[in-house]
């Protein structure tokens, strides 16, 4: 056949394929929007595929939007035009502006669907239950932990089975590890002005970003202490004085020895370092027992689930995730459920994450204030100046940051009232 009719056949075949794939299947379609990029998304894809295979009348479609700004823009336009996804996997700190628009349940109603909110760590549920109505169900917790190189510890004369748990042990370990760290790197090679690290230390020193009524900043004193600790670590050569962009590669290569970082790194580290990979709870470097965390919450825009058929399908999916969460935790998350955290199956299947999950009883999450990330953004430049440029003292930095946050809060409350 000549070229033209050959192309015509290809086009016709493509059209046929398109038609088939768009044919009405009488399946209820549930769009599931998550911020899971990279391999995390892959894990969720598998769970979704299994669900779809087991439920012929429901089709869950995975929509990935990684950036918070784009995610919230999609959510607000979707709610305004009633085109939002039916089920959300949303970072808890993105939720506050949308609280009036979520579908809510009483705890009893959820029990009827097989979901027991009493089984969730209270710190993760904090802010989601208003007047006995549950606005969302935390499924997991991303939480900080101590990742370390067992081999380096041994070479430095430290016991790899006994990683540092408090400030003194930590500083001693760092000092010893300097001997096995190549020139140009530090034992704990991380972006010292990483905002989440700052918040983690802030909590460990007893401060918080805002007062409980969200009216004023509450981080001046503890923030200064956190900064002083970081400065001391810089001066003693434990952490970099300038800004490394890629802490991962040197750690993977075995050049650097420790990282206080999020549980989502467990898989990658374990794969590369193998037996050498040490996992422990994050050391308590301050005065208050706490560890940084956050959670992905399952929520539904109320306007999208008014149809009982859709609501039923959505709840079926939510229930499936609730029951099969271990498959998701394998991606590098800790459970939100107390019972799973304590279960033998969890310990056997995901030993590293099990160790990390033992910190959950004292995990803390961001205050449930709209645009809390903007508050953190207001503080970040001053943290940078105190640690990198070093042109202001920690006290000065925190004072200036508090001033800016106060302006932000004032502006917010003015707009609300």
């Amino acid at each position, binding site marked *: 056949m000549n070229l033209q009719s050959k192309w015509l056949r290809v086009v016709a075949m493509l059209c046929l394929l398109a038609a088939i794939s768009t044919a009405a299947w009488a399946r209820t379609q549930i769009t599931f929007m998550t911020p899971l990029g990279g391999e995390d998304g892959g894990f969720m894809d598998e769970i979704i595929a299994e669900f779809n295979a087991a439920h012929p009348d429901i089709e869950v479609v995975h929509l990935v939007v990684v950036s*918070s*700004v784009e995610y*919230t*823009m999609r959510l*607000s*336009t979707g*709610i*305004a035009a009633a085109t939002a996804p039916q089920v959300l996997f949303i970072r808890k700190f993105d939720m506050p*502006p*949308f609280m*009036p*628009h979520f579908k809510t349940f009483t705890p009893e109603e959820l029990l009827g669907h097989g979901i027991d909110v009493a089984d969730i760590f209270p710190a993760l549920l904090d802010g989601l239950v208003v007047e006995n109505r549950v606005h969302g169900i935390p499924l997991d917790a991303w939480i900080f932990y101590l990742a370390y190189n067992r081999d380096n510890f041994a070479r430095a004369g430290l016991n790899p089975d006994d990683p540092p748990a408090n400030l003194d042990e930590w500083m001693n370990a760092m000092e010893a590890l300097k001997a096995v760290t190549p*020139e*140009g*790197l530090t034992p704990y090679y991380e972006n010292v002005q990483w905002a989440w690290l700052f918040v983690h230390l802030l909590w460990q020193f007893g401060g918080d970003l805002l007062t409980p009524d969200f009216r004023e900043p509450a981080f001046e004193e503890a923030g200064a202490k956190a900064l002083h600790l970081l400065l001391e670590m810089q001066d003693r050569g434990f952490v970099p004085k*300038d*800004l*490394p*962009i*890629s802490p991962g*590669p*040197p750690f993977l290569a075995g050049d650097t020895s420790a990282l206080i970082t999020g549980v989502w790194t467990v898989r990658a580290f374990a794969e590369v370092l193998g037996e050498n990979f040490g996992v422990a709870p994050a050391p308590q470097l301050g005065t208050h027992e706490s560890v940084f965390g956050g959670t992905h919450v399952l929520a539904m825009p109320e306007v999208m689930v008014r149809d009982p058929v859709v609501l039923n399908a959505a709840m079926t999916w939510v229930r499936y995730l609730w029951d099969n969460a271990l498959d998701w935790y394998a991606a590098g998350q800790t459970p939100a459920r107390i019972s799973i955290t304590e279960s033998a199956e969890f310990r056997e299947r995901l030993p590293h994450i099990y160790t990390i999950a033992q910190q959950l009883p004292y995990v803390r999450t961001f205050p449930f204030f709209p*645009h809390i*990330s*903007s508050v953190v*953004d207001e503080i*970040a*430049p001053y943290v*940078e*100046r105190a640690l*990198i*440029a070093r042109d202001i003292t920690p006290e000065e930095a925190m004072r200036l940051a508090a001033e800016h946050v106060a302006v932000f809060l004032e*502006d917010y409350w003015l*707009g609300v009232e």
Partner: protein
Amino acid sequence: MSSVASQVPFKRTLRAPLKRALREAGAFMFLLPHFALFVLFVVYPLGYGLFISFHRWTLLDPPRYVAWGNFVRIWGDARFWDAVMNTVVFAAISVPITVALGLLLALLLNQQLHGRLWLMVAFVSPVFFSSIGILLSWNWVLASFPAGLVNFYLMQAGLLTLPVSWFGTPASAWFWIIVITVWWIVGFGTLLFLGALQKIPPEQYESAMIDGAGAWARFQHITLPWIRNVLIFETVRQVILAFGLFDQVFILTGGGPGGATRTMVLYMYQMGFDRQQLGLAAAISWYIFIVIILFGLIQLAFIARSVRSAED
């Protein structure tokens, strides 16, 4: 005969303006389809944006009228002025470089060369790549550990002893942002200039050489006048692009360190879209518009005058 002669001038004077109006209406017909779309999708949104800029609005709540509140708020924000300064300085530095380099590359590619088509691919294609792909690549190239490409080769060459974090200081961050931006976008200008250069008849150069004109004189008196329209277009385009700098700072530095690389559009994103304050975002966009118009006019006047003086 006399009646006919007396009638003709009368008809002409009445018909001429009518005929002209019809001609103009006919001419407008060419513009109409696009103009209708322009009004619907550009003018109306901008007017709507102006309206919204006088309100506080998050899309999910009803808009609240705040008169000049948004504008006052931004005017008083030191970070806005920092962002303006950052953007202006960036534009002032990068636009001349980009335009000049685009012209230079076009002159180079206009020569007789082996494998010219592939050279064009190398220099010009990046402009058609999406920002994410490019910026992720460059981020990796500039990685701050010893095996990062730039760090490695500089250390090999003995210019560096320890790896550097290239986005750690404002000066270094801006240097690389400029380099990456120029690398990315110069190709389009090269293409435009090449198209214009190819239109110049070679006889002009030959006769100039016979007259004994040197290379610079040939450039001044032959090349420049021919490419003047494209040069102006390219400058305007580059100024607007430079003031719209967003992707690079968003992905590579997040506006850091300490807000030193925050540009006006990034400021709009952080203040407006991050916090879903649409009224604030609209107000900022009008400020951006005014700044660009001001500086665009200045740059345009400068270029036009220097081109004209070079031609004379």
